[in-house]
């Protein structure tokens, strides 16, 4: 059940109708949400009905243990058990085919069949679950007392497919609050975000994917260097609109149930440097990698500064591998890791001075950062290393023709680029306009959007790019 499908919105409407009358009773409200979470998982595969409750229950017990245990060895053992279990789930249900293929390559034998890989972005569940036990281990919070609250928070359905990765300790108190209401303003905000997400996904991301990006990456040699370059720019926009569109729908869906999720994007291609890019792009993952991986690596407090650089590089390398077990993602992660380490070193050399206020320098920094990110996206999107090199070789051919860039593609690209750079206050103004509109105008706007999607985008519900991670 994709967050952009009709089935999902029927489900969400049903949940909205059921949840609000019952949420005034804590147990009833939480039970409805937990049922919805597991219903959502079951739509992907019934096996999740064993896996997720089992793993959540174990993490709940570990959390209780961490809440009461004082002995360091016991606390370490408990958190290790949680890490081992969650990474074990990831290894078994996501990476096993890669492990088997690697083993088969070494042993020069045929890789055994493995049917237990799952379509859902299971890593988002594992990451979310790990925030709980690691936070407790670090004494950054107190264990959730109620099993029902914990199970509901850790498996909250809007975040299941692609985040935003939400700390259990941040979501649980919201769930615990009895007698919540949904103001007209929050309701309007929620519907606006959902509408915005759908628009981003269908009218921009899917349109660019089908009419340009997929074609260029499928058969780069059929396009000129200029077209291939525009295809790569288009991918940068497609990925942003696809993923931020998903996040908008997830955040809007949660808000419709009175729950606030963290923001995941903040106009990333405006970043002045690579460190800032990661504070603007997939913010919840960057924070997770920083808080739970980077800070956990050894040597950070060492006098040897080299550890800092190495850890930055290593964190991003693992981040790359998390996206997929292939050389493409290794290169993508390594590029970002190296750039972050370089930027960290550069900043240290300059005595941590703030970024220059000079307009030309700022524009140049933005262009440099964005183009570096876009170059790295080639490896992220390409089907193989060979495919990535083909795309780059086409760009390097410097052949010029725009025969394959039709006017509608150019218009969508221009709108996508401009919309990304628009100041936040314009979105806020549009949102407030929507919120202040009467209910029938809000409904009409949503219906017009759905109609436009039906008749303009015509691409069907393609999966969100990040659901495969």
């Amino acid at each position, binding site marked *: 059940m994709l967050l952009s499908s*009709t*089935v999902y919105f*029927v*489900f969400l*409407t*049903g949940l*909205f*109708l059921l949840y*609000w*009358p019952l949420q005034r009773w804590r147990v009833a409200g939480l039970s409805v949400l937990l049922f919805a979470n597991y219903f959502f998982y*079951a*739509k*992907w*595969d*019934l*096996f999740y009905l064993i896996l997720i409750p089992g793993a959540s229950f174990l993490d709940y017990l570990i959390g209780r243990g961490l809440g009461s245990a004082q002995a360091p060895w016991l606390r370490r053992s408990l958190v290790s058990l949680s890490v081992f279990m969650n990474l074990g789930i990831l290894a078994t249900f996501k990476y096993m085919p890669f492990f088997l293929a690697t083993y088969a390559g070494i042993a020069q034998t045929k890789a055994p069949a493995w*049917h237990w890989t*799952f*379509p859902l972005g299971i890593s988002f569940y594992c990451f979310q679950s790990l925030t709980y036990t690691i936070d407790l281990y670090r004494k950054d919070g107190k264990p959730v007392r109620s099993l029902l609250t914990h199970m509901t928070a850790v498996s909250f359905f809007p975040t299941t497919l692609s985040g935003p990765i939400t700390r259990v300790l941040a979501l649980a108190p919201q769930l615990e609050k009895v007698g919540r*209401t*949904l*103001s*007209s303003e929050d*309701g*309007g905000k*929620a*519907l606006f975000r959902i509408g915005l997400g759908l628009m981003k996904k269908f009218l921009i991301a899917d349109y660019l*994917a*089908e*009419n340009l*990006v*997929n*074609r260029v990456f*499928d*058969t*780069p*040699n*059929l396009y000129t260097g200029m077209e291939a370059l525009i295809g790569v720019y288009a991918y940068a926009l497609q990925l942003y609109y696809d993923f931020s569109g998903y996040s908008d729908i997830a955040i809007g869906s949660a808000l*419709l149930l009175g729950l606030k999720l963290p923001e995941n994007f903040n106009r990333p291609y405006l970043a002045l440097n690579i460190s800032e890019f990661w504070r603007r792009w997939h913010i919840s993952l960057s924070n997770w990698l920083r808080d739970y991986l980077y800070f956990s690596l050894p040597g950070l407090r060492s006098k040897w500064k080299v550890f800092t650089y190495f850890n930055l590089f290593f964190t991003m390398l693992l981040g790359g591998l998390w996206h997929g077990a292939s050389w493409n993602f290794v290169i993508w992660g390594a590029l970002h890791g190296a750039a972050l380490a370089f930027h960290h070193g550069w900043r240290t050399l300059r005595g941590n001075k703030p970024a220059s206020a000079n307009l030309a320098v700022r524009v140049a920094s933005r262009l440099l950062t964005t183009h570096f990110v876009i170059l790295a996206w080639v490896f992220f999107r390409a089907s193989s290393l060979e495919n990535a090199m083909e795309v780059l070789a*086409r760009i390097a*051919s410097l*052949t010029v023709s725009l025969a394959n860039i039709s006017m509608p593609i150019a218009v969508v690209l221009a709108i996508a680029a401009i919309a990304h750079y628009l100041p936040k206050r314009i979105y806020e103004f549009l949102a407030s306009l929507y919120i202040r509109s009467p*209910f*029938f105008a*809000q*409904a*009409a706007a*949503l*219906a017009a959007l*759905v*109609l436009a999607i*039906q*008749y303009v*985008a*015509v*691409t*069907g519900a393609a999966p969100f790019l990040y659901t495969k991670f």
Partner: protein
Amino acid sequence: MKIQSPWPVKPFLVIATFAVGIALPQYIPQWYNWRIFEWATVPAVVDFQPRARAAEPLQEEAERLRPDTVSLKSNSSRIHDPTATMDHFYASLLKTERLQNGTVTRILHYGDSPTTADLITADVRGLIQQRFGDAGHGAYLIAKPWAWYGHRGLDVSASGWKMDPATLKGQKDGRYGLGGVSFIGQTGAQSEIKLKKPGHTKLTLSYFGQPGGGEVKIMAGDIEVATLNTDLPEPADAEETWPVPPEAQNFKIIVTRGAVRLFNVVFRKEGPGVVYDSIGLNGTWAGVLAVHINGQHWIEELKMARPDLVIINYGTNESGYRNYVETTYPKDVREIIRRVRAAVPESSVMIMSPMDRGAREAGGTIGTVTTLPKLISVQAKLAAENGCAFFNTFEAMGGPGTMGKWYMAEPRLVSADFIHPMPAGARIVGTLLYQALMDGYNSYKLKQLRRAVATAAPAATPTEARP
């Protein structure tokens, strides 16, 4: 007493109004075209489908990819050959299969962009050479006129050539060689062709000789194979063949003096076996072979090539121009056939229809470009009228909407333009063509056997009747 709504009022009203609004067109006939919601979606919410382990199209295609175990399901997968024009090709193939000394069967496959990248043709080549023997890679261009150009098992890096594909009509004399591209190089121009596997024993260079023509040196690894002087008293199409060491995999063609005009090289091995030439021109259409290329020149080139089967596999680009299909196209195809027959009258000629070509339809489904079925029916008619065989690729691969199905498969079998197959999709089409050729060949062998039995039977009868 104030009654409190169980739901947040305004969001509830928005959702309810929206739901009524999108459901309404189902009940008002005048608004029927504005339907965006189906009630059937509601039960789908509680439909817990078991996890699909593979996309359906891939399973279907996997079955079709087993040529030895799957019989051809319908006539649409067969070659239509009412005049038995394919018999010449089958007879040659039979000799090759019987390992008759050095018998080589040569197939020339003319096609558009998929053929330019050796998609489909590489798969047929592989399958047919696996069964009948490998008599060499066949024709290959001097350089890459398009980045998309490439053959499986070979690669070329070149510099200094002026490349004129027939599609762009860059040469006024219309001479583009067998491969449809003219290469003019001055001193220093060169090409390095790398073969992945050794074993080729002969190299043929096709060129245009003319008074004052320059010289070109051919190297096999470090060994100089020959120096060719293209200075001829009269302008003429020519070719020269040299033996090359079978272990050689790197070949160089270097212009050492003056200006030369080359067309293509041909790599061959000792027979028996099959040579399958993949001759693709990017963005081509029937008019290129019928009009752009000088007729007499192409006839001479075909005569030198001596193919047993010529496949004309055009139509995808034409399908974008309904007016052309309905007016000039039949004339162009007739002219192509006339030219081939004038060059190699004994050869089999087969028209191979294009693959499906997808296009988005209202509502989002991927259908078939509307002109395509019309074009294919014109091709079938022209083949029948002109005594050519016909292979309906479009029907064999599943008919209308196949590219839509292929696009939705995981992994995708066709590129996002719904035209160019991905390698797995090309393999499917290649296998279908191979199966169709083998089906025709087996029928031919059966026919020969029956004929042999029939001629032997009358002679045997008196003996058997003897008391």
